[in-house]
Structures are given as C-alpha cells and as structure tokens.
C-alpha cells in the first residue's frame, strides 16, 4: 500500500491488506470477525475511500513508469512469497474450512453486543448517527 505512487493503487493495496487481515482472522478461527472485516471495511468503507481519491483527481502522479529493476524486484519478491506460501501449504494437514469451528460464534457475538455491552453499543450508534448528521449539516450550502 505504501509502495505505490498513485493514490488509487494505494487504496487498492489497502483493500488487499484488509483481505489479508480477514484471512488471518479465519486462521485464528474467528470467521465472524473475518466476514465483518470483508463486508464492512473492504465492501463498504473502501468504496467510499476510493470515491474520495477519484474525486480528488491528483494529476501530478500520472505517467509514473516502473523501471526495469523495480519490475524484476517485484517478480522476485512475488515468486519468493508464492514459493514460501506453497511450501507452507504443502506442510499443512488438509482440513475443510468450517468443520472444526465452534458453531455459535455469531450468536455469542450478538449476545455480547446486546447484553453485556448494550450501553456502549447504543452509545456508539448514537455517536455515528451524530457524525453522519454533522457531516451532512456541514456540507450543506447556506441559502440566504
């Protein structure tokens, strides 16, 4: 994400990072968090980021060309990572995703949110509502 000069490419890099994080959550046996990560961050928030970056339309960064050396470095890095990942995958026992996981994670999350952390949950939703209303109010053109 920080390696690209073009802001849209950086945004896409961030998107990829979100996916990688979702993958880590799955490996940590927390599929609910992983799915929320993809749905909320990758699916909703990043689209808005992308919109903003596109609307800013930063012209100065156009026409950036990768040099030959950089390309070779990318290929070597990618191939190395791919090889490492492949070797690591081969060393794993084949398991089918979803079979060994606790089945009531979503239920427990819901119970925690609307039970023990009810107050915080509701307060945060009010905070977000306030932020949304504030953003609209600030952007409104004053008509005299």
């Amino acid at each position, binding site marked *: 994400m920080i390696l690209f000069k073009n802001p849209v490419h950086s945004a896409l890099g961030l998107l990829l990072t979100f996916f990688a994080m979702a993958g880590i959550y799955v490996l940590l046996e927390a599929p609910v968090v992983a799915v*929320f990560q*993809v749905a909320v961050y*990758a*699916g909703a928030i990043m*689209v808005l980021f992308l919109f903003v970056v596109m609307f800013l339309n930063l012209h100065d960064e156009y026409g950036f060309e990768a040099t030959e050396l950089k390309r070779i470095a990318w290929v070597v890095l990618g191939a190395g990572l791919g090889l490492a990942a492949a070797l690591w995958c081969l060393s794993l026992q084949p398991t*089918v*995703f*979803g079979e060994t996981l606790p*089945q009531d994670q*979503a239920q427990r999350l819901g119970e925690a949110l609307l039970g023990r952390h009810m107050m915080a949950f509701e307060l945060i939703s009010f905070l977000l509502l306030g932020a949304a209303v504030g953003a609209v109010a600030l952007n409104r053109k004053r008509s005299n």
Partner: protein
Amino acid sequence: MPALPAIVKPLILMNLLLLVPLVLVYLERKVIARMQDRIGPNRVGPLGMLQTVADALKLFFKEDFQPKTPYKMVYWLAPALAVVPLFVAAAAIPFGTLWHMGSFEIKPYIADLNVGVLFIFAITSIEVYGVTLAGWSGASKYSLLGGLRTSAQMISYEIALGLSVVGVIILSGSLRMLDIVAAQEHLWYVVLQPIGFVVYSIAAIAETNRLPFDLPEAETELVAGFNTEYSSMKFGLFPMGEYVNMFLVSCLATVFFLGGWHPLFGLTMIPGVLWFMLKVSFFIFMYYWLRATLPRYRYDQLIRFGWLVLFPLALFNVLWTAVMVNIPWS
C-alpha cells in the same frame, strides 16, 4: 480420499457457473422474442441453441483494443473483480440436501458455513469494485460517469437487499444457509415475509443492473457507460458477471424465501436439486418477464426509489418481524 470432493466439487461448480451465462442469454433471447411476437435466434444449431456459443467464440477472437491509460494494472484487474467474487460466493449456496448413492453420501454444496449469509453478502459487496475501477481506469469521462453511477446504484440497493433478508434470519434464528432452508420445511418464508420477498426481488434486480434498472448500460447518454473502453473478452466478462450474478441472486431468493430444495405439493420423488433449479428458473423467468414488460427508470427516480421506498420498507419489515416474533401468542 477425503480431499477428493474438496477438489472435484469446486471444479464442477465452476464449470457449471461458466456455462450459466451461455444458457441464460439464449433463453433470455428466446423468451423475450416470444413475448414480443418474434422468433428469436434460430440459425446457429438446432433451434438456434448454439447462438450464444458462437457469440462467445466471437468475443474471444475479437481484437483486444486497449485505450491509452496510465492505469494498466487496474484496467486488467477490473473485469476479473467483476466476476471472481460471484464464483467465490457460489461456494456457500446449498443446492440440495444430502444425497445417498449406495454407500456414498454426496453433499451438493461446497462450504457449509455457520455465517453463510454474511459470507455471501460480504463477498458479493466486492463486486462493486469491478465496475468502479473499470469506469475509472479507462481514462474516459463517459466510462467514469458510468462507473460512478453504477457503483452508487449498487451501494444504495445493497442496503435494502441486506435488510430484506434480516427478517428471514430473525425467523430462522440462524445465519447458516442449511438451517434457513431446513426451517422452511412446512411453510416457505415467502408466505411469512411477503414484504421482505418483494423488497429482495426489486433490490436484486437493481443489484444485478437489469431492466428496468439497467441505468449502467445507458447507451443513449454515456455511450454504454463503465464498459465503454473495453473490448474482446475483457468486455465479455462484464455481461458474463451480470448473468452469473442473476443466477446467484436467484439461488439466494430460493434459499431465503422459496424453501430451497423442499418440494411443492409433497412431490418428493423429484430430487431436491431439481426442485431448487426449478425455483431458480422461475425467478430468472421473472427477470425476463420484467425486462420484456417495463420501460427503463430515470436515474434520479432510481436512487429516490431505493432510498425513500425500498429502504424504509425493508426497515419496517425488520421491525415488524422482530415485534411479531416476540409476541407470546405467535
């Protein structure tokens, strides 16, 4: 060999999904031709059945013209992003219940996730990027406007789409696709959730960019919109994604509202997978019917309808279902 089904089943599903657009396009052209008192494709192959195959081959062999764009990587990535999430999401759809073939047990689904509903909505929300980036990376104002417009439409209707299913989740008490279907053994949710079903159907049509909401393909104003700068099979991936998405959305409607693989009128001798496909075809036929019947919406009407009619309706449905479930006598 426990790993064998894990390899074979995705291969089968993927190839089926690749064939789905060919079949759907042919059927669409035939059905709409009938509705408009025409004959439709009838030259290539028997009854014109190979017409779409010929069209697809033509797309492959067309010259792949690329615009002068500074965003080569994104330009290549966008068509893939429009298709790949749909194939991934299809993995979580249960096409039927357990099949017993001698001593074998065949599960007609790939992944039985306990958060299946969330998984599908999360993965399909990625699809917006394909359209947005395709519009942007073409470095043309027509495609950029088309792309922005399409993403605004898809994001707006995704909310109504997601909310319309919440009622189903409340009733079944599970996010697992198999549980949702199992809960409809005696009564389909289309009976208990009529508002949810209607909102889902309308939002699904907008989500797949089909008539009467096919604003993304505004030939008259935007020279076709987000896919203007694409040609050959890179262009072909967008309509392909659209048809796979249609199929996917119909599968989801079947799972959420039409009882999945459960038979109608106690006709249990027809296998569940076949029932599932019958319901899916019914939903897809509705798509064709609407396309042949209704004119296109205007863009402001579309967005207003999404936010001021569908969204409140879906919210009301959630509230109503939650209240009804908690009343002791029901």
